[in-house]
């Protein structure tokens, strides 16, 4: 598990960097109205395909965690959105009790949404590192 613990943040950083670089290069990724990006996380040695963080445009831009992993007691979610040239960052918070959570951002001309997620077992063990997601309208 040590390999996983060290590699997941790296993967998240690289993935985000690829998206950013791709965007800067003109390859903007359009995700309007669809589930744009899922980044699974897990806890300890348990399956990592049951927790997700992703941005979504539905009735509003949101960042979500879907936690079906009963080993993940604490879930961290932070997010940001961009309107024009201004970034808005919603500070990350940890919530315990196996939560699935939605952070809903104000209605308006949001053109980018992103965030990061982590999850830990009770006792703050089994944290597999932060996973990030970024999506554009």
């Amino acid at each position, binding site marked *: 598990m040590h390999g996983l*613990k*060290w590699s*997941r*943040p790296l993967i*998240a*950083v690289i993935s*985000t*960097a690829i998206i950013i670089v791709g965007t800067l290069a003109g390859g903007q990724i359009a995700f309007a*109205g669809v589930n744009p990006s899922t980044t699974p996380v897990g806890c300890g040695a348990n399956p990592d395909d049951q927790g997700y963080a992703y941005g*979504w445009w*539905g*009735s*509003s831009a949101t960042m979500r965690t879907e*936690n*079906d992993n*009963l080993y993940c007691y*604490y879930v*961290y979610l*932070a*997010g*940001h959105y*961009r309107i024009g*040239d*201004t*970034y*808005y*960052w*919603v*500070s*990350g*918070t*940890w*919530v*315990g*009790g*196996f*939560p*699935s*959570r*939605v*952070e*809903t*951002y104000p209605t308006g001309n949001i053109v980018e949404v992103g*965030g*990061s997620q*982590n999850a*830990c077992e009770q*006792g*703050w*063990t089994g*944290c*597999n*590192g*932060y996973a*990030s997601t970024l999506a554009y309208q």
Partner: protein
Amino acid sequence: MSNARCTGHCSYPLEMTVWARSSSKATLALVMALVAACGSGEAEPGSPSGTGQTSQAGPAGVSSPLPIPPASLALLLPEASDFEKDLIEDARISVAEYEAAKLAEVACLRTAGVTVQEPVRLDGLYKYRLVLSYPAGRPELSNAARECNKEHSGVIDRLWAEVSVPLYQRTISESRRLMAECYRRNGLKVDERPQDSTDPAVQERYRACLTGMWAALDIEGVSFGVDGDGRPQ
């Protein structure tokens, strides 16, 4: 366990580089003095403290310091800043101490030039949900935000999330109940996932449920699903 060190770190852009550290002892003294001056530390969620004041006297039991489980303290204490260590060295944490940490973070942010949106206050989840803003092209501000969190509340955030579970779990359960009730009143079906609907009429009804629940529980911007969606509680 090293991955959990990065509370707050990853919530800001990766490319940022500015240092905004403040004297932990001096900041703690100032913030706790402010808490004392406000006659508080006994908080009730939702009381405005956008001017830097803590929330005012709250429900019985909430004002008492909550014990930090020894295992968590042992695990996280080495990661704590000196400022945070001063707050948790008695192995307990109170609402007032949590608020002191978050208000110190806010002061640090503003000193560094980061705009912190109002209101700044304890919400219905007994947490501070800070919304920061800054213009594109100012990466140093994001790094300042990361450092301010690390210095003042990175570890406190986690310990508070742990000890305050009994406080906010009631709010989470109530939010799910209120959403289910609103669904029924408005003809929304849980299994049709109205939150993802592309139908403007459904979106409007769902949004009305959401904003009503936010107002009722003072948890603007946050939701936890709806009774009947199969999620664990």
